[in-house]
């Protein structure tokens, strides 16, 4: 068995709260805002300077160093953590230049980072203790528990100079400055695990992090058990997120969606109003609570259920001048002798898609997709803007950069391609996603006149953008956007569908939460965002769900009895967007609803039954759900009508209608028309294009015409529907259903 362990998976977790608290900067201080802003400004830089390293190694207390009740020869584990010297040097330099605020902030960030590494170290300690069948009786720190000289012993025992390039001064201080040295006294009793810093014994009585009331939480989830330490005052959801868990929280932790369920195994937690609205009496008694409402007051053990898994749309349909080339999904991974590659990345609000493309032919070689971990801050763009404005910008920015690094690594690993072979990367995303990625202030995005910090095409180096250690240093392009509401992903979608070359007007509709659409040709484009809402993704629908296994995606009614199909043919768990649309169309056809959308009396109270889950629960479609869908489909239809009006063309003059978005892929055209979402005049012209963003990026990487992209943006004009009186009227009318069937 090993004697020393290098800890290679260490993550520093720094929050604004921790740093400002460490500086004695209270929220009501007149300089709080300024410090918070400065923190957000410099944190991305500071983060890059944090290089966490650590080691654990077995040893014995030496003869000459007295340590309270432990004699020489006592078996111990020595632990060392460091964040490197870069950040401290930056702090010193800032002070020397008279930039005191920056100097102090850098230092406070460094302290917070170093302190936070102990969480990861605790995990390693657990593993090592289990492997060696020992427990930890006590934690000793110099100089309060054991003389400084022990650091020399540790330095020699773990060979710190060679292993981690850590020096020691004649005063027994380890260098870099931000290095901590810990001695864990071992015990035969395996259950013991006293590893926490004991503030009450620490001599740094002026330390702002001094907290005798720290809590220890045991978290049980699919992956096993973990122990995390937190301060009182944060919600359990915040603590989980800070510690690398991803509980579902589409509403961003505001207590509205009921998805962040956890079960208290051990410990007490009050029942909040939100808990009561979400759980049955039985469930409450069993200990179920919403993590976002739960603020732990004492140590507890909590079970965190598995997160929903999503089926992600990865394909795009790329049209080039002569032929339609359909890009096949993952199965078409190819061994290739290509000497260079390009990568297209679609950063969606909910999912990210990475595509590896052959540098010469442009063919899609491999695709990787994953959920955007920002979803823990909120499912939609507005929640995330609000979170960013509330001080979480750095967390959001870090989240997406981490996902980009991981996604790229996965793409490269799975295709067995070296990062150095990537020539160029293109990124398409809506304007908010770009702001969060680059750490730009979002405060103007959500309020009139809705200004973005920048909408230009941006060029930079991949490592500059995402940080971290990577072999890929490719030139990266971020697609320009039209406005705060209509971003680079739509520009890319238009480019994919060849709008830069069209002479006749065509329409692109992105059916997602934002419901962006664009109408026009190469000379003139009108764009808008209809803010259709989450109904198309199963949001706000009582039995709604995302595109997960078992989601009801297709419905036919036979004499008012629903015949359904589910995703992956699994037992029904909920109704997803396409299922909602199809169900609605059927309800209209069989006249279970009238033209205003009012449900027949029989179903009015309890909803229309759709399917039964494996647990025997009936999935229903309620009057409330119908109203939600009406809002969404009316927004899309009215958006189309207004665009046509403002552009000055009629439906017959539109040559092509492209329907994009994850939802758009499974869409039944006839049913979408039947509920009035799309005009019937479009029936023969609809092309479902799937993920048009990634397809457009691919075309760009292949043909590389920045000018064509710029022209698209330049020739576009945005219409703000919310301010349009005619839109309101159109919107009202579009809510209705046509109950006479004349096909």
């Amino acid at each position, binding site marked *: 068995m090993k004697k020393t362990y290098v800890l290679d998976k260490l993550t520093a977790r720094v929050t604004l709260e921790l740093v400002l608290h460490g*500086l004695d*900067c209270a929220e009501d201080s*007149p300089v709080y805002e300024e410090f918070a802003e400065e923190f957000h400004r410099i944190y991305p830089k500071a983060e890059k300077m944090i290089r966490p390293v650590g080691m654990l190694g077995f040893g014995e207390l030496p003869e000459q160093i007295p340590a309270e009740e432990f004699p020489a020869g006592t078996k111990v584990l020595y632990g060392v953590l460091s964040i490197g010297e870069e950040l401290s040097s930056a702090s010193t330099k800032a002070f020397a230049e008279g930039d*005191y*605020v920056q100097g102090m902030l850098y*230092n406070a960030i460094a302290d917070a980072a170093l302190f936070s590494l102990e969480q990861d170290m605790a995990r390693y300690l657990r593993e090592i203790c289990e492997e060696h069948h020992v427990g930890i009786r006590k934690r000793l720190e110099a100089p309060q528990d054991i003389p400084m000289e022990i650091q020399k012993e540790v330095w020699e025992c773990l060979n710190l100079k060679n292993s981690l390039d850590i020096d020691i*001064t*004649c005063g027994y201080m380890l260098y870099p400055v931000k290095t901590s040295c810990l001695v864990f006294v071992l015990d035969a009793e395996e259950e013991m695990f006293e590893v926490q810093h004991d503030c009450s014994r620490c001599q740094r009585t002026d330390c702002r992090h001094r907290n005798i009331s720290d809590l220890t939480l045991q978290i049980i989830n699919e992956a096993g058990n973990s122990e995390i330490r937190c301060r009182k005052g944060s919600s359990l959801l915040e603590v989980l997120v800070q510690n690398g868990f991803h509980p579902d929280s589409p509403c961003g932790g505001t207590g509205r969606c009921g998805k962040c369920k956890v079960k208290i195994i051990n410990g007490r937690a009050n029942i909040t109003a939100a808990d009561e609205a979400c759980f049955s009496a039985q469930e409450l008694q069993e200990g179920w609570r919403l993590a976002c409402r739960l603020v732990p007051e004492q140590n507890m053990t909590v079970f965190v259920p598995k997160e929903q898994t999503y089926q992600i749309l990865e394909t795009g349909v790329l049209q080039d001048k002569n032929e339609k080339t359909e890009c096949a999904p993952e199965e078409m991974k190819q061994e290739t002798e290509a000497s260079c590659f390009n990568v297209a990345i679609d950063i969606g609000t909910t999912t990210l898609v990475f595509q590896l493309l052959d540098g010469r032919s442009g063919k899609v070689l491999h695709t990787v997709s994953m959920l955007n971990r920002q979803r823990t801050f909120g499912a939609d763009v507005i929640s995330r803007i609000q979170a960013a404005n509330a001080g979480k910008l750095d967390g959001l920015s870090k989240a997406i950069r981490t996902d980009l690094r991981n996604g790229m690594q996965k793409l490269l690993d799975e295709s067995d391609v070296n990062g150095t072979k990537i020539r160029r990367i293109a990124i398409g995303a809506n304007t908010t996603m770009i702001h969060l990625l680059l750490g730009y202030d979002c405060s103007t995005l959500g309020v009139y006149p809705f200004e973005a910090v920048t909408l230009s095409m941006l060029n930079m180096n991949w490592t500059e953008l995402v940080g971290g250690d990577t072999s890929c240093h490719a030139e990266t392009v971020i697609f320009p956007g039209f406005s705060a509401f209509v971003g680079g992903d739509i520009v890319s979608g238009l480019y994919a569908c060849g709008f830069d070359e069209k002479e006749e007007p065509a329409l692109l509709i992105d059916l997602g939460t934002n419901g962006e659409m664009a109408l026009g040709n190469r000379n003139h484009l009108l764009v808008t965002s209809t803010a259709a809402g989450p109904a198309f993704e199963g949001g706000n629908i009582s039995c709604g769900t995302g595109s997960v296994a078992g989601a009801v995606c297709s419905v036919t009614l036979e004499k008012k009895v629903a015949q359904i199909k589910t995703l992956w043919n699994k037992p029904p768990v909920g109704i997803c967007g396409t299922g909602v649309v199809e169900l609605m169309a059927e309800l209209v056809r069989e006249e279970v609803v009238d033209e205003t959308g009012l449900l027949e009396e029989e179903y009015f109270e309890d909803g229309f039954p759709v399917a039964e889950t494996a647990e025997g629960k009936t999935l229903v479609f309620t009057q409330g759900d119908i109203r939600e869908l009406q809002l969404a489909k009316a927004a899309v239809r009215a958006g189309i009508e207004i665009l046509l009006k403002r552009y000055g063309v009629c439906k017959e003059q539109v040559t092509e209608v492209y329907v994009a978005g994850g939802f758009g892929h499974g869409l039944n055209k006839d049913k979408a028309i039947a509920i009035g979402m799309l005009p019937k005049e479009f029936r023969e012209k609809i092309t479902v294009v799937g993920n048009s963003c990634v397809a457009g990026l691919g075309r760009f990487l292949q043909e590389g015409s920045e000018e064509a992209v710029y022209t698209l943006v330049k020739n576009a004009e945005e219409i703000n529907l919310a301010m349009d009186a005619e839109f309101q009227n159109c919107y009202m009318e579009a809510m209705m259903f046509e109950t006479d069937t004349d096909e």
Partner: protein
Amino acid sequence: MAAQIINEISEFLQKGKAKNVKTLVEEALQQGIDPKDILNDGLLSAMMIVGGKFKRNEVFVPEVLVAARAMNAGLAILEPHLVEAGNEPKGKVVIGTVKGDMHDIGKNLVSMMLKGAGFEIYDLGTDVDAEVLIGKAEEVGADIICMSALLTTTMPYMQTVIDVLKEKGLRSKYVVMVGGAPVNEEFANKIGADYYTPDAATAAEVARKAVENK
């Protein structure tokens, strides 16, 4: 008129408004006010007030930092005029963290506050040798030598520095101030230092008095 604008400078400095301090200092100069008055009554006295508030826990480190930053902003404008007017600093200070010790934040804050008290500072950084510290003091004709130590294992080096001063017959030439978490008045007396101060604001006050009495 003069009093009013100087008052405004002082107010803004205390609030940490660097831009306002800059603008007003420029204005004051244009009005023909003596740069030394702007310095003493506008900037230095304002910093003293901030220091006093800090000691009484009425404001904390962040507020002090922005005030010091505002002062620097004003000082930058004032500097060339002060040189022209033949202004002398209140005194010269050589400061460093002793050999074997790499901590620097506390020392940096003391430097900041001493500068805010009108001193000329020579900050030698960390891990400073006795010879280097004393050498610099001799070179610039310092009034005060400040030492910082954050560890019980490095504190004794302060004694070494004082011993070297004595050996060279230089002890009475300098005021020796010490500080740092494990240091206290008892230790300071034991090693023969002149003053122990527990925080940067006190250090500035004591330094100021020390040179006045010299």
